[in-house]
């Protein structure tokens, strides 16, 4: 018995030492990373032992939806354009666009339908078509449709990740959720507006030659026969000047000279009078296109269009090849962020915010303070109650509970589990539930004593008889917590994780550790008369 007991004590001490060491070491590593110092103080290390959730640390939680329809529409417009370019002499009628994934080409007796069929087979393998009613109706095949949607979401995740990385956020979480949603969690970010704009900015840059403008939309339309803009042109709104409510418009060529894809780099710069501007630099291919277009159109205006808004439309003074400047009334931050999103690439589709949760840094601090105070007070009350009610055995329970708390903290630290405000409640709740196991055992021991059992036997029987019940109570509580884990967002998940780890640990502390303490106390003596319980 003595030998066995020694092993058990050794095991408990080893677990305790491992837990403390694990907690402190993880704390050092995390503090080093978070604070950016090479030798954090012991206090900092202890503070950074557990990863804090957004609700305690401050930060932003966002759920975005990718408007995959945008990508489908772009694909459709591409297909229409391709078909048009390759059937120029086939005598096609107009094009109808009933939905995002279908389009129809009107045909008549003059149309060379074999040319149309030929072009379709060669250039539009992703589309199926039906004929009849004087038109050919094209439908994007399901396989390709899903692929385009899927790619759009995947690419959006990638783009957002690039932007966040460029902005510089420690430990960001950017993950796809379901079919078309993206979850973004940015701990420590205290500037929600800026970051939201940064993420959502489609950053679709086009440089197009201006046909007419700027003017009001009516004046512009009046300049074309029948008040209708020709097929190869489009009307784009100009960015509103600060403090002005009237809108002005430009008529520009649909075919852009260059787009954001031709950019090699972009950075914030300073223009005249210290105004914030963005300079961009083109790839080799982009330079070639840009040089040719600007060289051929000297004296004309070139519109710089960002997300369908004309930022500025400078006159082309000379042939430009590899770089340009975007002017607009930017603040330094806006210029910086625009350069950043241009570098990181455009989004393949627009984004909609479905959910936003921002916690400022001061609220997090306040929550920690309150949560910890409540926990400490609650735990102290429980400890006092146990000692008053069970006397020496109560101390036994207190030791087991303290050990439970230490192991729980260490486990959370080592598993990189996130502590949230409800998680703090879970922490203290596990103390309440762990006490249950002690109570079950102690009550059993008392019962055995009442039934006239000798103290030693009573302790043994108490533990063995209560064991099945302890397993049952833990199992049911864990089952409930697992369902909780499947449900809800960060804070609630944090609660479930804390609860589950705490319950698992309490199996060890309340049964194994508590039993061992009893044996240390009573086991060595050959005979004991009373048990303080």
């Amino acid at each position, binding site marked *: 018995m003595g030998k066995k007991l020694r092993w058990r004590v050794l095991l408990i001490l080893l677990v305790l030492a491992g837990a403390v060491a694990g907690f402190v070491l993880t704390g050092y590593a995390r503090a080093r990373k978070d604070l*950016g110092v090479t030798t954090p103080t012991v206090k900092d290390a202890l503070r950074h032992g557990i990863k804090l959730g957004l609700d305690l640390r*401050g930060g932003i939680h966002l*759920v975005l939806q990718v408007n995959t329809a945008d990508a489908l529409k772009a694909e459709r417009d591409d297909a229409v354009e391709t078909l048009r370019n390759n059937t120029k002499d086939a005598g096609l009628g107009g094009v109808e666009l009933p939905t995002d994934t279908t389009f129809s080409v009107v045909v008549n007796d003059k149309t060379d339908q074999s040319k149309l069929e030929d072009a379709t087979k060669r250039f539009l393998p992703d589309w199926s078509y039906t004929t009849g009613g004087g038109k050919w109706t094209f439908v994007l095949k399901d396989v390709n449709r899903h692929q385009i949607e899927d790619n759009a979401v995947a690419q959006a995740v990638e783009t957002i990740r690039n932007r966040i990385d460029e902005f510089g956020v420690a430990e960001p979480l950017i993950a796809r959720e379901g079919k078309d949603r993206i979850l973004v969690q940015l701990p420590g970010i*205290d*500037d*929600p*507006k*800026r970051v*939201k704009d940064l993420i959502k900015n489609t950053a679709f840059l086009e440089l197009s030659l201006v046909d007419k403008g700027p003017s009001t939309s009516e004046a512009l339309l009046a300049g074309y026969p029948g008040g209708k803009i020709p097929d190869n042109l489009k009307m784009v709104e100009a960015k509103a000047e600060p403090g002005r409510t009237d809108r002005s418009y430009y008529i520009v060529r649909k075919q852009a000279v260059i787009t954001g894809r031709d950019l090699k780099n972009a950075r914030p710069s300073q223009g005249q009078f210290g105004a914030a501007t963005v300079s961009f630099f083109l790839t080799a291919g982009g330079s070639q296109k840009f040089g040719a277009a600007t060289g051929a159109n000297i004296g004309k205006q070139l519109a710089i269009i960002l997300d369908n808004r004309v930022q500025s439309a400078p006159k082309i003074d000379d042939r430009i090849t590899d770089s340009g400047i975007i002017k607009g009334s930017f*603040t*330094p*931050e806006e210029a910086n962020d625009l350069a950043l999103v241009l570098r990181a690439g455009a989004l393949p589709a627009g984004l909609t*915010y*479905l*959910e*936003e*949760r*921002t*916690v400022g*840094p*001061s*609220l997090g*601090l306040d*929550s920690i303070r*309150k949560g910890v*105070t409540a926990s400490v*007070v*609650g735990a102290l*009350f429980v400890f006092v*109650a*146990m000692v008053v009610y*069970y006397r020496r055995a109560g101390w036994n329970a207190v030791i087991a509970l303290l050990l439970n708390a230490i192991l729980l903290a260490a486990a959370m630290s080592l598993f990189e589990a996130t502590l949230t405000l409800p998680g703090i*409640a879970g922490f*203290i*709740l596990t103390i*309440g*539930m762990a*006490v*249950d196991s002690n109570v*079950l055992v102690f*009550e059993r021991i*008392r019962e055995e004593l*009442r039934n006239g059992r000798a103290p030693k036997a009573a302790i043994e029987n108490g533990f063995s008889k209560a064991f099945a*019940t302890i397993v*049952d*109570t833990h*199992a*049911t*509580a864990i*089952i*409930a*917590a*697992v*369902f*909780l884990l499947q*449900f*809800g967002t960060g804070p*609630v998940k944090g*609660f*479930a994780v804390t609860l589950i780890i705490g319950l698992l640990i309490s199996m060890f502390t309340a049964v194994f550790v508590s039993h061992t303490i009893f044996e240390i106390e009573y086991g060595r003596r050959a005979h004991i008369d009373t048990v303080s319980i």
Partner: protein
Amino acid sequence: MELFRQTNIDFLKYRWWAIGASWALILIGMFAVFVQKGLKFGIDFSGGTAIAVKFNERPDVDKLRKILDGANLGEIGIQRYEDPEKHEVLIRVQQQAKEGRDVAGDVLRTLRQGLEGPTDPAKIDINTEGKATLAARLAAADPDRVAGRADADLAAAYAQVAERVIAQRSQVGLFHSAADFGTIPGVSPEVKAWLGANTVVGPFVLLSAENVGPQVGADLQKKAVLAIVWSTIGMLLYIVFRFRSLPFGVGAVVAIVHDTLITIGLLALFGREFNLIVVAALLTLVGYSNNDTVVVLDRVRENLKTPKKEPLDVVINRSINQTLSRTILTSGATLIVVIALYFLGGEVLNTFALTLIIGIIVGTYSSIYVAASIVVIWKNFQNRRKLAVVPAPAPVKAPAVPPTAPTPSASASSAAVARPAGSGKKKKNRR
């Protein structure tokens, strides 16, 4: 110290009273839910926006309302909360018809414009801007003249300065005036002077903003209901499997449903709001309520194994009495903890704690009365039916009797004692 020394209370004698009391509580709760006030859903479920803001001085709620009415956001609720000395205000905005509007951003911008009037665009609001912006502006101005030094890292140097400034702001809540810059630790006088000249001290600081769109709200509602339903089914399966007894499982589940209904009803009666954290508390209760029931049922199972023939209600009564002390003590300990959370845990955890307080009290009662009563009523009913089919006293086979256990025979007067199996398994656990 002992509170209950070998009690011998005939709990089941009052079972019909208990059932009446339970129904009364459920009905009061349901009245509150369906007739009186309805369930108040927080924005997690109903969608909408909630913004918590801390002001520099005591906020004039009427003025805030007037300013925000201009933002065209629909219905807006403004309330002070927590300690009035802290000047904190919670602004709620109804769900917008269209997904995606940045309501929180709009509210903050409107408030700032309305309270401050036009501001110098070259200056940043020190109570609004984050570390990144502040660091960039500082780096551009370079008040500490870092650029001249050898191996200078402008960005890193000012990132640290900005960090300290914002940390101080968090520490004190918000900057009240430019004079507060003097208190920022670890920052040079030059930086403080720069702050004084190039920033404005805004009227408020953002504590938190939550914006839940209609889609996510509907999703969460569905998920919450499913989570509660599935965890209840999980409990049923566990008990039926562990105790090999359907009545035990049904008794436990009825107790869970009972506790959940009463808790939801009472929360509605108290006008508390339902949000994710309350659902988390309800799910915890599902586990907790079952916990208590399992302890009683475990004892019943154990007591049924003694060779003595006793009517089931006597066995159950004895089991309840034997576990009474544990039930009360554990509930008491958990209750202490939860009460501490209720009073000290702050706004977010308050309703969470209240849910648990109600749930623990109701759960303790239900594990004594509801689950056990159901088992007794079920068994009695089963026996009466069997007796009606088999007129002469004959061996009655309990649903899941292991072949090794002696088959109990039912006498006309006493309820048959079902011996849940798993007894063999339990022996293994004992040394």
